[in-house]
């Protein structure tokens, strides 16, 4: 497979697991897109107690956030500066740590993928840092940033990368993520959004 075929295959398989894919040259250029995602989404449900101003009940009967919360822990400093400014301008709360204070739920979590797997439409994300892990779990919309050049063709072809990644520190927690959380446990009817993310967007970057 050529590189562009691998990227096409990735897109195809990721879309098959309900990922929305957008392409940008740099992550900074994607900031307006991320803001738009927040504008268009329903208010975040508060699934646990939190001392925060609450909006009307959601269709599931739970209170909602008035001020959206976006998390982008352990990301590139230059990006975070621009991103938090954009959030501030909109009146959103942007956080980069302390996600345990938001276990009731956040609107959007942003994380970078180490690599992509074309065959399955997956992203490998280093979630060793607890805040990164939480940001991809308790968010309603998970946004993963993936560089095209890091996409590998098959599951088996990522073995070496996974190995060196695991071996790089004394303890690690790595996740392959393929789309939002899902279930078919009731009458085998597929439903998206169980305990984890309700939506997943992949920002594909050149290079």
């Amino acid at each position: 497979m050529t590189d562009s075929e691998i990227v096409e295959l990735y897109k195809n398989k990721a879309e098959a697991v309900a990922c929305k894919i957008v392409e940008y040259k740099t992550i900074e250029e994607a900031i307006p897109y991320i803001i738009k995602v927040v504008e268009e989404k329903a208010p975040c449900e508060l699934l646990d107690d939190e001392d925060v101003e609450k909006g009307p009940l959601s269709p599931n009967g739970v209170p909602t956030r008035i001020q959206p919360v976006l998390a982008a822990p352990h990301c590139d400093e230059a990006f975070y500066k621009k991103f938090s400014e954009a959030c501030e301008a909109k009146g959103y709360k942007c956080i980069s740590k302390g996600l345990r204070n938001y276990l009731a739920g956040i609107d959007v979590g942003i994380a970078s993928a180490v690599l992509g797997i074309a065959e399955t439409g997956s992203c490998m994300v280093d979630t060793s840092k607890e805040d990164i892990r939480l940001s991809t779990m308790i968010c309603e919309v998970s946004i993963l940033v993936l560089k095209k050049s890091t996409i590998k063709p098959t599951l088996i072809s990522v073995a070496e990368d996974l190995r060196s990644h695991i071996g790089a520190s004394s303890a690690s927690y790595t996740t392959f993520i393929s789309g939002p959380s899902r279930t078919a446990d009731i009458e085998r009817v597929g439903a998206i959004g169980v305990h984890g993310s309700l939506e997943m967007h992949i920002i594909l970057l050149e290079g």
Partner: protein
Amino acid sequence: MEEAAKTLKEYQEHIDEALNDKFLRKTLDKFAVEYRVSRDNVFKEVPGADCVQKIADTKDWCSKHLEELYEQFKTEAEKRGVIVHRAKTAKEANEIVVKIANENAVKSVVKAKSMTAEETMLNVKLIQEKFEVVETDLGEWIIQLRDEGPSHMVMPAIHLSRYQVADDFTKVTGDAYNPEDIPQLVKVARVQLRKKFNHADLGISGANFCIAENGTFGIATNEGNGRMVTTIPKTHIAIAGLDKLVPKLEDALNVLTVLPRNATGQRLTANVTWINGAGECEIGKDGKKNLHIIFLDNGRTEIAKDPLFSQIFRCVRCGACANVCPVYRMVGGHKMGHIYIGAIGLILTYFFHGRDKAAILSQNCIGCEACKDICSGGIDLPELIREVRTRCHDEFGTPVKEVLAGKILKDRKRFHTFLKFVRFSQKPMADNEGFIRHLPDILFSRHKFKSLPALAPKAFREMWTDLKYTLESPTMRVALFSGCVQDFVYPEQLEAFIKVMKHHNVQVDFPEEQNCCGLPMFMMNQNDVAKEIAEDNLKAMSAANYDAIITLCASCASHLKHGYHTILGDAANAFIEKTTDFSSFMVDKLGVTSELLNKSGEKVTFHSPCHQCRGLGVVEQPHALIDMAAEYVPCAEEQVCCGFGGSYSSKFPEISSQILANKVRNIKETGASRLVTDCPGCIIQIRGGVHKAGLNVKVSHIAELLAENLKP
């Protein structure tokens, strides 16, 4: 949880209950058809057969190097701050969990799905010890609310309807739900369980792979609960069977290539989590997770040493053996395993939960080999189930009826005399269409779903003297292995065969010392009798004198080719080499073309016998033959068992009849006026079903179709 049946009668009553569950039947029927499609779609994208072979090879190696793998994993994991435990029994594993929980002042526990924790019945223990335990996988949560066990390894609540689920949720929350809105029902779990995750003191998960090279374990989940359970509470215990140990990451990735595809037709689960060492945890001591892994033995080290059963280490718990099982499709998981479900469940029940629970269950295998064909690890499941029955027989004794049958079958002359006696005594009951009119209630009260055939007035072996012929210069010389059913019930199928062979200049011989192939005795676990019969047949058929030994019975063919190798080893090789089923002989060996056949306009469909398509790997040849003599119409679920299964249909007539009803429905939908197949057992079943259903479809052997359409 339901108690295991102690007698066959009691078990049949349990089965009747399931058969009468209309929702269950409809769901499993739909699932069986849809699963096939989605699974095949994603499976063809990967080198599936190679991956399966690799799983088999790796796991076979692992079962021989279990202790080394365990030591390596332990060393590597301990280096990274993980506390590694090993439990000899289920009880011990549960006690370790309780001990860790008490040491850490745990009150509440959240669990991600773990079949190993189901195996140890951990929840029962935790509740006894007054912990609050919440299952967080949606299916597991639902069955926990109902106090039931899983009915499928991957979809534990597949037996429940949306209405039952909505009711159960109402009981928990007091709110009413619209059962038609399944996505909304799913959100109930999201809303109800987030607090449980957030405030739990302990998370318990399973592990799909434990990788020795670096002490990593991997978990495949879909709902996101696996990551919550392993992240939010400060203590995490993973429970894994020793069989989950593999040497390298590549081995795990190879399993992952097959597992989700085979389980649910997914390319990969939404999350795969690789946990290596006690990592960051803000609320943990020194900011680290308190991480434990418990390896459960529960008989596994003994199984690993067993030359035959060590194969079960290849199981990756995908549940595919249940997905394709025609019996599971009828009765569901609660009747097909104690905790582990499906074909592998029948075997694991014996090892993990005792022979008293497995003795009756292990009889409920129809032997169609669909499970073996789909297994992620290529486990010979039907053979292992048969062997479990043998062991149960050795411990509990063989039923009298079966001992008697063995005595009769062993001696060919006595057996044939017995059949002639039956033929004489059935006379008053046989009608002129070849069916028995009134089945004596005392013997067949549960068996009226199909018309049973009468024995033919004259057996093939009695006709042979008149049928014999000698060709001047034949293309080939073959021996016919008739099998009992065609010899005594359907001799006309063999007559048709002779006609076709003669027409194609093939010299047929019928060695008269041949006996039953021995499959029924093999299936009844009378291995000594099956061996004697096999030896007699090897002698009688004198393979060296012929170009081929042909049988028109797929079950005989499969037993002669595979069963004889199991029984006699390489001594049977020359015989096995020569033995072939009718369709492959015609197409592959004789290279028959339409030259000597008339293609009629008759619409003919096909049933692919289990022992032909899976037993022998013969699929296309019969289609080609039909196409030469008629208009071939494909039948939906062609390769799904007809429900006969030899003695199975008399042991479990209700299940057999329901499987047959599906077959008849599929045949009806083809609009064909005739169905042919390559096995007289299937003909007994299907002809009987079609007759009872009043369907105007002729059922015959493929040889008869050809014999009727020979060019003059």
